[in-house]
């Protein structure tokens, strides 16, 4: 008691600033003790949850295999399967279990296809997991909405597409992304309709994802991409250019040639790249006449095109550029010259006073 009073007296006679610092120190000390205690609890819980997660994952995996083997007819649910469904219905009322079951089912549908996948989709509906996913679409938090769309995509729930379509214009990027992935995963090219009036930019990441999904499906009816090539949304045009290349859309060539007059330099480069892939020669005249007004990237892209389609008539233009300050253009020009007029290439004077050109010529000669 005496000690306590002494401390109190000592504290009372301290200057205000020191008092404040001690109060802060006591607060910090208490906070640290609390944090240490909670850290202990947190680590125990994390470990426990991990063990529990692995255990439940194994159980659900086993149950799912049994479920799949218990049914003879894909359209009918056997008694054993019904029992499993009823058990699952109880289990999934707990969020932790539900998440594990969804994760296990998702992993499974990603590894399988055909009737087995259909059986899993059916199970997703029968257990009521679908209702949880649909409920997520009405959530306020974007991450919950996105996770709902993700689940509906994984289990191929097509009938909710109208609700998902509305989310294409959601203010949060991740929700929009998931909605786009849903539409393309489930409806392939038809799902790309959202591009017609897309206001947001489609990121390169999304473009690659959408393209990869489309490529998973064979024998698709490919939509006319002209409308997208003419879009005012640059990212939609970029995506359409990728589609043109991947799906060999030669019939869009006229629109591609128009794109060479687009204001966006990067878009022009990408258009030239597609035309290069198509071995197009029609664009040469326009690109040659505008060569000096073009950006360096466009010039490089054009020379890449010429590497594929150069003819003797291009010789003067090519020779004009063998001293181009850009290394890539110089290299391409010399390569082309060797192809279209080897004699002239062999007697080139440029190498005498241009180190780069000398190296390039030596390289071309040896390759």
């Amino acid at each position: 008691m005496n000690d306590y009073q002494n401390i109190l007296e000592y504290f009372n006679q301290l200057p205000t600033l020191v008092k404040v610092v001690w109060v802060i120190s006591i607060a910090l000390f208490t906070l640290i003790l609390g944090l240490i205690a909670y850290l202990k609890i947190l680590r125990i819980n994390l470990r426990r949850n991990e063990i529990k997660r692995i255990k439940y994952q194994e159980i659900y995996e086993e149950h799912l295999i049994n479920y799949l083997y218990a049914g003879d007819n894909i359209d009918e649910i056997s008694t054993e399967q019904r029992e499993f469904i009823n058990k699952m219905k109880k289990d999934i009322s707990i969020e932790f279990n539900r998440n594990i079951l969804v994760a296990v089912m998702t992993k499974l549908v990603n590894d399988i296809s055909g009737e087995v996948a259909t059986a899993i989709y059916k199970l997703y509906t029968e257990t009521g997991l679908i209702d949880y996913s649909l409920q997520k679409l009405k959530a306020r938090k974007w991450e919950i909405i996105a996770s709902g769309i993700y689940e509906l995509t994984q289990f191929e729930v097509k009938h909710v597409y109208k609700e998902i379509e509305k989310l294409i214009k959601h203010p949060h990027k991740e929700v929009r992304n998931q909605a786009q992935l849903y539409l393309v995963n489930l409806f392939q090219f038809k799902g790309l309709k959202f591009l017609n009036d897309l206001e947001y930019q489609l990121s390169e990441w999304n473009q690659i994802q959408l393209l990869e999904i489309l490529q998973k499906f064979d024998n698709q009816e490919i939509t006319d991409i002209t409308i997208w090539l003419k879009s005012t949304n640059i990212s939609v045009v970029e995506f359409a250019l990728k589609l043109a290349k991947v799906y060999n859309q030669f019939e869009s060539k006229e629109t591609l040639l128009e794109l060479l007059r687009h204001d966006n330099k990067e878009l022009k480069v990408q258009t030239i790249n597609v035309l290069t892939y198509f071995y197009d020669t029609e664009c040469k005249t326009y690109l040659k006449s505008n060569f000096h007004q073009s950006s360096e990237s466009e010039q490089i892209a054009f020379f890449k095109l010429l590497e594929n389609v150069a003819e003797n008539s291009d010789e003067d233009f090519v020779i004009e550029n063998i001293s181009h300050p850009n290394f890539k253009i110089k290299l391409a020009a010399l390569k082309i010259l060797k192809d279209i007029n080897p004699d002239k290439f062999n007697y080139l004077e440029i190498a005498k006073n241009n180190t780069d050109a000398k190296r390039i010529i030596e390289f071309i000669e040896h390759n």
Partner: protein
Amino acid sequence: MDSSTVRIILLIIHILFFIYAFSVVFSYIFLSFISAIESSQYLKRNSFVNYNEILSSTVSPSISIIAPAYNESLNIIENVRSLLSSHYVNYDVIIVNDGSKDDSLEKLIKAYDLVNVNYLINYQVPTKPLRAGVFKSTNPAFEKLIVVDKENGGKADALNCGLNISQSKYVACIDVDCLLLEDALQKMIKPFLELTDVKVIASGGVIRIANACEIKEGKLININLPNKFIEIAQILEYLRSFLLGRMAWSRLNGLLVISGAFGMFDKKIAIDVGGYDTNTVGEDMEIIVRMRRRMEEENIKYRVAYIPDPLCWTEAPDNYKILISQRNRWTRGTIEVLKKHRKIGFNPKYKLLGILSYPYWFFYERLAPIIEVIGMLYFAVLIALDNVKWDYAFAFFVSAYLFTIMFTIIAIYSEELTYHQYTKKGTGFKLLLVTLLEPFVLHPFILYAAIKGNIDYYFNKKIKWGEMTRKGLSKTES
């Protein structure tokens, strides 16, 4: 000077010290909050990402991993194998043998069936000349590997050589002894591809300490906490720095440094600014500052991204001699970079870079050790003059210590709530124990290294990189 003038001067000094200490504390609290928001959003944003779609895509952008190697003969084969095991499809690995005096090149030639090839290099950034030339493998299994043998020019010069060799759109610059996780490239490339309103010029990753971890065939098998105090203390330091500091600066788009151990760049921009500066030991920080500076000067909206996932694991010094040498170099690097780019400091023309990032780095990184030492010397003088107000001193000392502890515990929390890498029982206790001791045991060495760095910078210009003897991660292989 009369005594009242001296008293006023002393009072001003006290107030300045107080403001400095208070602003440090405030900035740390502020950064912790920002980092918590950013970490949580990052995890949410990436919880649905299917990286496999990017991996196999034929239109995924190309990436070159550039790894300079100098006398790395001991582990070079294993390290290259680790770099070649990425799951990303469209990438190559460029090992730049920077004039090694050991048998690194011979080992690589033998292990990977390399042959000298005729390779046309576009010398966009000047570098030291090639020595034995460029090598590629005759074995299709190693078709992604390019080995360049050049004269010694230092790490920056080797990286520049890699930039010249690379044909890819993006380059990942990495220390050859780092262990890169298989999904590192697709995670690092994501910010470059997903942001549509700004240009991402670089992305940096978290560096984790691999000492005591179990590694097999270039892959991380088991994460262990080392036993040595110095190693655990560095783990805490890295957690604070990467999970709290850099995460927050990334959110503010004020990141001034991307670790030289692992960073990805838009190659065109890196070359346009002239590549790595070979005249500094802080080349990793310098190139970022220069790239940012260029973006600001050209008024281009840009971002330096940051990935908190534990993607890159490295060996940390396990003795004080090497640690001091490393921190000495970091200090000199910081001084050199800040001095070289002093034009941007406090300059509103450079927006956040000039009015926040640079001043923060200047006051709280560059000056911190100097101010700390001045404070200690002043305290010693006061003790000698028997002029210490012990009530004040003791109270402030206790609160500063407790704040340090709390900040480190928050960093541990951040780790537990996000990646929870140290799962084994007893790890939490060890981390807490080291947290309590670190300010007294590790910090004095860090302070000493920083002061020595300052002295070396001004009075011993000949010192460049210093020694970093590596035991090699493969030593822990099971």
